[in-house]
């Protein structure tokens, strides 16, 4: 596949590209539930969340084009080889059963919430207003996810058992969302030097995320220690372009129409 788009440079552009790639792949994955959701109302709600996520990816690809020298959003989204995609392993996983998809949705959107909260403090008006605008949608995503988590963890024996199994399966992948990335350390020094504290770095985001997640799980009666979540190791690689086996087939399917004519006007 020819790589015809310019890769945006600089740590901010790279960080935004990671967020955008996560959203694109997460949205694509979640859209696989459309028409198959457990009940009609939930099918519509979950499909709408997926649509939002693809929209968020577009918002950042557009910013990267306008301000960071990236190519056209369609090219950035659909015309990059796998090893240039910067999404994490969690979003790449197949949808599994609904318990898996819900736990992933819950873990993922709470992490996105933290990233947008942080990004809304950036001294850059365009990005600030993007973050503030998208934050409202993510507020609904986390409300939707929290409601399902509570409902099923406090539901029947079967629903609780299946949710606990899904939490254990998702956790190492979810920790991988906070993989440290090339240039992050230098950037943190640079930001601190210019008095910018809006981006705390991946390790700090991970701590914040995990602390909040554990607190919620405990209110829903989950024994976090017994599940062994604290001792789990993250699945890494995505931020360096090393992906799980599930990304390649997804890209193949997602870009199939685009590749028929990469220069087509849509």
């Amino acid at each position, binding site marked *: 596949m020819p790589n015809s788009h310019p890769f945006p440079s600089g740590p901010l552009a790279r960080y935004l590209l990671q967020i955008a790639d996560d959203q694109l792949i997460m949205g694509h994955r979640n859209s696989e539930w459309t028409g198959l959701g*457990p*009940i009609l*109302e*939930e099918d*519509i*709600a979950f499909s*709408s969340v997926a649509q939002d996520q693809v929209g968020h990816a577009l918002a950042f690809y557009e910013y990267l084009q306008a301000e960071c020298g990236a190519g056209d959003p369609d090219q950035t989204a659909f015309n990059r080889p796998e090893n240039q995609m910067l999404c994490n392993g969690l979003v790449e996983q197949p949808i599994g059963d609904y318990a898996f998809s819900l736990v992933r949705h819950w873990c993922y959107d709470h992490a996105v919430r933290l990233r947008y909260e942080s990004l809304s403090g950036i001294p850059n008006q365009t990005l600030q207003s993007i973050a503030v605008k998208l934050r409202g949608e993510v507020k*609904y995503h986390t*409300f*939707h996810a929290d*409601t*399902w988590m*509570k*409902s099923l963890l406090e*539901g*029947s024996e079967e629903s609780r058992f299946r949710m606990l199994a899904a939490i254990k399966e998702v956790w190492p992948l979810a920790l991988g969302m906070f993989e440290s990335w090339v240039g992050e350390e230098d950037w943190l020094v640079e930001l601190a030097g210019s008095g910018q504290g809006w981006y705390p770095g991946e390790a700090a985001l991970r701590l914040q995320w995990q602390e909040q997640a554990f607190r919620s799980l405990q209110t829903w009666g989950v024994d976090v220690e017994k599940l062994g979540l604290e001792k789990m190791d993250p699945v890494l690689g995505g931020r360096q372009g090393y992906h799980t086996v599930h990304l390649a087939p997804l890209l193949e399917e997602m870009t199939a129409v685009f590749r028929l004519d990469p220069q087509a006007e849509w």
Partner: protein
Amino acid sequence: MPILSLDPRVNRLQAEQVSAEQGPVLAPGDHWPSYQVFHQRRRGEKHSSVGIVHAPSSEMAMALAKEQYGRRGETSNLWVVCSADVLEMDYADEDVFRTTPSKSYRDPAGYKVNDKIDAYKAKNQG
């Protein structure tokens, strides 16, 4: 268990083991109640009934109602109310309203005052 329906709730009822007279026994959660959804376009305006969602709790009803009824157009607020909590009149009592349309004196348009207004204007113009 054979798959009888694409709806897992139908399969869980194990209808083939149930006699036709008795009907299936519903466990809590097998059949979700409906919630009435009320939509408010802008702050200060009234909430209007827009339809229902099925949900196991009012929180879930709200989570689902947001996308069913708040995803297009302007929305400022939503209410959800369990349909079972709504007190409804019996249609057998619909006759209490039967004579209402003929009570035109209760309608401001039922009063013919234009003649008097015109007479008053004519008198005061001259």
